[in-house]
């Protein structure tokens, strides 16, 4: 059983830790990325995503813990693992004075296992795949950020891959570029390649991924299928009313705990999690109306991933570093 589970993991880490000085950038994480999944690695800036990815790829050594990628321990098997892994780490980086095509030829010739016979064909196919054929001969310093990002993905696609590791592939892109990259990732996922994509934006992950791990301050605070994580959130009711205090009083009387935030007050809303109470929406509205609360809107909201994410990682300036 445990053997089977191991075999079906594209990435697996055990108590993986990286310490910089006295600071644990990655603190004992156990990642489990199922083969064939589109796995979101979600966490605010500075939560340790890139550091983890560098360890997965053997760029830095772990302070302690174990890493298995495609069933083999890293970094010991780096030479047999990396040819099957395409990677984008901490943004694209190129020789600005070379063309896009020359850059890919350079990086492909660095691959000690890549054949030089079909190099140019593979380079052209990768450029085609990301829609950069027209700019192949253009110097990279004349590329837009979105084009560089796509060239970075083309580099990850120079060979057929079992696993793609994409670190913040939409970072810094405009909405158009973001959509392009997202569509690209989707089409890659549809070929069955396992994709491990990191982001600090929930929306990104929510739209792309089947699975997610949430990082906060170097630790994984939640991991699993997206639907399962969503279910862990709470169903809430939202009452739109000018009579905020009266509405809150009614809800308290019903055994609920209304949340008052500045934001909600400005919007003239009262929000309360349903917890485990079996109250029906219509009962609540009836109680409100009976208490002469003017109800201009009422909704029962399914748990949102965003609330779950915020409750796990903190919000805005509260983000744990």
């Amino acid at each position, binding site marked *: 059983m445990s053997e089977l589970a191991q075999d079906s993991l594209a990435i697996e880490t055990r108590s993986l830790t990286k310490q910089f000085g006295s600071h644990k950038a990655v603190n004992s994480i156990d990642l489990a990325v199922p083969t064939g999944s589109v796995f979101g690695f979600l966490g605010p800036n500075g939560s340790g995503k890139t550091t983890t990815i560098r360890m997965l790829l053997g760029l830095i050594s772990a302070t302690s813990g174990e890493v298995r990628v495609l069933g083999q321990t890293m970094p010991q098997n780096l030479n047999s693992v990396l040819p099957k892994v395409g990677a984008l780490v901490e943004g694209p*980086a190129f020789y600005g004075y070379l063309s896009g095509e*020359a850059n890919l030829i350079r990086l492909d010739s660095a691959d000690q296992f890549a054949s030089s016979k079909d190099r140019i064909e593979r380079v052209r196919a990768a450029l085609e795949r990301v829609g950069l054929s027209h700019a192949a001969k253009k110097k990279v310093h004349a590329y837009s950020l979105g084009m560089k990002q796509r060239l970075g993905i083309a580099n990850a696609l120079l060979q057929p891959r*079992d696993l793609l590791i994409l670190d913040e592939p939409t970072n810094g892109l405009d909405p158009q570029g973001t959509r392009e990259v997202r569509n690209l990732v989707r089409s890659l996922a549809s070929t069955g390649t396992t994709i491990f994509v990191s982001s600090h934006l929930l929306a990104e992950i929510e739209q792309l991924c089947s699975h997610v791990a949430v990082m906060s301050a170097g630790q994984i605070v939640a991991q699993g299928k997206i639907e399962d994580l969503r279910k862990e959130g709470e169903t809430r009711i939202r009452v739109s009313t000018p009579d905020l205090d009266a509405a809150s009083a009614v809800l308290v009387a019903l055994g609920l705990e209304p949340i008052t935030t500045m934001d909600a007050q400005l919007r003239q809303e009262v929000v309360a999690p349903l917890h485990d109470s079996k109250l029906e929406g219509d009962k609540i509205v009836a109680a409100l109306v009976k208490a002469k609360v003017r109800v201009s809107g009422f909704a029962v909201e399914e748990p949102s991933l965003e609330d779950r994410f915020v409750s796990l990682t903190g919000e805005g300036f509260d983000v744990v570093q």
Partner: protein
Amino acid sequence: MSSSNNPVAKIKRPLGLSLLATELSVMFRRRRTYAMLGAVALIPIFLAIAVRLSSQVLAPGEGPPFLDRVTQNGLFVGFTAMIVGIPLFLPLTIAVVSGDTIAGEAGQGTLRYLLTAPVGRARLLLVKFAGAATFVFAATLTLMISGALIGAALFPVGPVTLLSGDVISVPESLLRALLVAAYVSISLLGLSAVGLFISTLTDVPVGAMAAIVTVSTVSQILDILPQLSVIHPWLLSHNWLGFVSLLRQPMDLSSFGANVLVQLGYIAVFGSLAYSRFTTKDILS
């Protein structure tokens, strides 16, 4: 049984000839490389023009060695220029190229993509050293060729009178010019190895370059302090001017041999240091 359905990871090419080819094409497609080779070519050109324009006749032995002979025979321009270039200018260009090897890739972020290719860290070091060595040979050849051309253009050319008083033919003197270029190139390989090592220590290429120039300068200063004469034979720069002995008849090759040994020593020591440093380094760039 991971889904290894692709045929990669079969043939390994440890020699990395195509990597070396792109290394050279990356280097020689940079404007900076041309600018440096151009500047190297200017050394004999300035020197020849200065000598040509000054009416003053130099007494034998005045100025840099051979300078007094340039007016009689243009083939001496290259030799004189080499003597002028070797203390500072040639080491400076070597510092730029060897300091850039690893730190340059790190600084612009391409190092992480080379390593995840996967390039193999030792293989990358070897190719980088081979690239830097190629530049060294290109620089000394550029200087010699430029010297021969400008010398032939501005001065008479004929059989060359050597330091020993013997006379050799023009073709043979060109052969000696090539030998001198080879000697100086070998002289600078040790510095390239030091540069490769220093380049693995930082992600800031300019810092590496400055450090390498410092090493070259300190070596030359130590070499003129008589109190340190015990260590002189082992200094990086000790044999740098020794190519003069190639201009005697019969050729004195003892300095050539000593130079090769010292440079090989530096390559072995600093190559190993670069290897042990780079293969265990955390790549955070």
